[in-house]
């Protein structure tokens, strides 16, 4: 079972728009909130009101700076499991607890089989897996598998909690195996990319890059900086004003 399926019918995943994410952590907390009472063991927190506070989270938002000085950009960067096609976390699992679903490609941990060896976390280049200290099993993003097919939830809400909550609409959920799906089209249009492609994991989740910033507008033709009229007295302005009022009738 820890062998990867040769092919999955669908590739459900997330498309994350780095051009829109403002780093508000809404997805981070709604994920924690949904999943601590959802799939498998609770996401525990150690020393919740003390020093060295730490907990299990399935999604975290980093912030990076790129470039120098006034041109430096800040990019907020949410990161959770990428549900890779060639998921190394699955094949290293000695018990078969880690698996990739053949129908939709979601990578899951069957916690009932997990021995808590931690090897899958070592095998994942992205830090997508976190051992729950209290339960001693590996936790990871389930793509809210207990939401997306859940008949007890209104149809429009059958998306991962992070997508449901994102105030900036920076997270999109869909089938990346379907070239006609909204997410696939988005990836195509915006040049969606893989994280660490050189690791050969073939992530399903894609990131949309921050858009190229439009060039700074330059003071344009009307008056070049050097030859702009003096405004020392407002006479020229009032001449124009009188004419303009005249035209208004």
């Amino acid at each position, binding site marked *: *079972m*820890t062998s990867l399926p040769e092919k999955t019918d669908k590739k459900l995943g997330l498309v994350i728009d*780095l051009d829109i994410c403002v780093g508000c952590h809404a997805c*981070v907390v709604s994920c924690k909130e949904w999943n601590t009472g959802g799939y498998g063991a609770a996401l525990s927190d150690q020393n919740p009101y003390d020093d*060295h*506070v*730490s*907990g299990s*989270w399935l999604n*975290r*938002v*980093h*912030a*990076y*700076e*790129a*470039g*120098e000085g006034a*041109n430096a*950009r*800040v*990019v907020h*960067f949410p*990161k959770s499991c990428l549900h890779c096609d060639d998921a*190394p976390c*699955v094949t*290293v*699992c*000695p*018990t*078969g607890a880690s698996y990739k679903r053949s129908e939709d490609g979601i990578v899951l941990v069957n916690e009932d*089989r*997990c*021995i*808590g*060896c*931690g*090897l899958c*976390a*070592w*095998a*994942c*280049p*992205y*830090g997508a897996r*976190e*051992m729950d*200290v209290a*339960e*001693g*099993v590996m936790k990871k993003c389930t793509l809210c598998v207990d939401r997306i097919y859940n008949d007890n939830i209104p149809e429009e809400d059958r998306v991962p909690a992070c997508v449901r909550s994102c105030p900036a609409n920076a997270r999109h959920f869909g089938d990346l195996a379907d070239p006609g799906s909204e997410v696939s089209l988005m990836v195509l249009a915006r040049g969606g*990319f*893989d*994280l*660490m492609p*050189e*690791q*050969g994991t073939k992530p399903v989740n894609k990131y949309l*890059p*921050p858009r190229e910033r439009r060039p700074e507008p330059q003071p344009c033709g009307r008056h070049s900086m050097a030859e702009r009229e003096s405004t020392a007295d407002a006479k020229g302005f009032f001449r124009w004003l009188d004419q303009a009022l005249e035209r208004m009738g």
Partner: protein
Amino acid sequence: MHPAFSVIAFTSLSGMGYGLAVVLGVGLLDGASLGGQIGYVIALLLISAGLASSTLHLGHPERAPLALTQWRSSWLSREGVLAIVTFLPLGLAALGSLFFAADWRPAGWLAAAGSVATVYCTAMIYASLKTVQQWASGLTVAVYLLFGLAGGLLLASGLAAMDAAMDHTGGSWRSLLPLAVLVMLAAWVAKALWWRRAGQEHSASTIESATGLGHLGKVRLLERPHIEENYLTREMGFRVARKHAVKLRRMAWIFGLVLPLAALLISLVLPDGFAAVLLLHAALSHLLGVLIERWLFFAEARHTVMLYYGDERA
């Protein structure tokens, strides 16, 4: 990577145990002798202690049997399966040695093969991880195998010397010494190459490839997702200060190579009894050297996940 005691102890102890099992199994130490009997006991103890330590460190040790199921894909599973499979011939050989004072050669050969295969799997657990560039190399396998064998040869030399001292059978045990010296040197040559590679080669992954933001310029971490340490930074973000690492490497060389090598050379000219005592102490020194080497193996390893926490390269 976090240098977890359980894993360091497991790989070091069981490595030496399997090394000893190989030496016994191929008949370089007579299983029928007292030294051989003690050797089997030590090998089994080292292997069992190592396995126990690594099992107890699991989140759910009671589910450990499940770990035997995924041998098709998982090196960890293969290691578990082989460790258990190897117990059969090894146990049989030990049985012959301890209760029948016999050297059951076929069992020995099978045990030796199983031991090599088990250590190979252990090494492959690490060598197969692309996420840790320092580990992802055939040299890791060579180091694990050679260190195990060197430790086993050292122990076996001591035990053979003890046999000789007790039986007054003469110095034929000294024929083991050149092999021990050779393997010991080979192990450290492999480790030296391993360290050189670790210092020179970097993963193709960088903070730029991890974030995909390289086109914007040099990427720096501005803010962690959560301020305090988390599982990932504790497990993957362990850092050892450079000056400590240098000191520890020196200690590993001294305990793991210089002292055992000196003991091997000196024991060439010592009376058997003294040689036995010296060599068994040298084996302890070697184990200490390997423990330090193994600690560094983890502590100095850099995981790609730390690229997300500000490392520029892995």
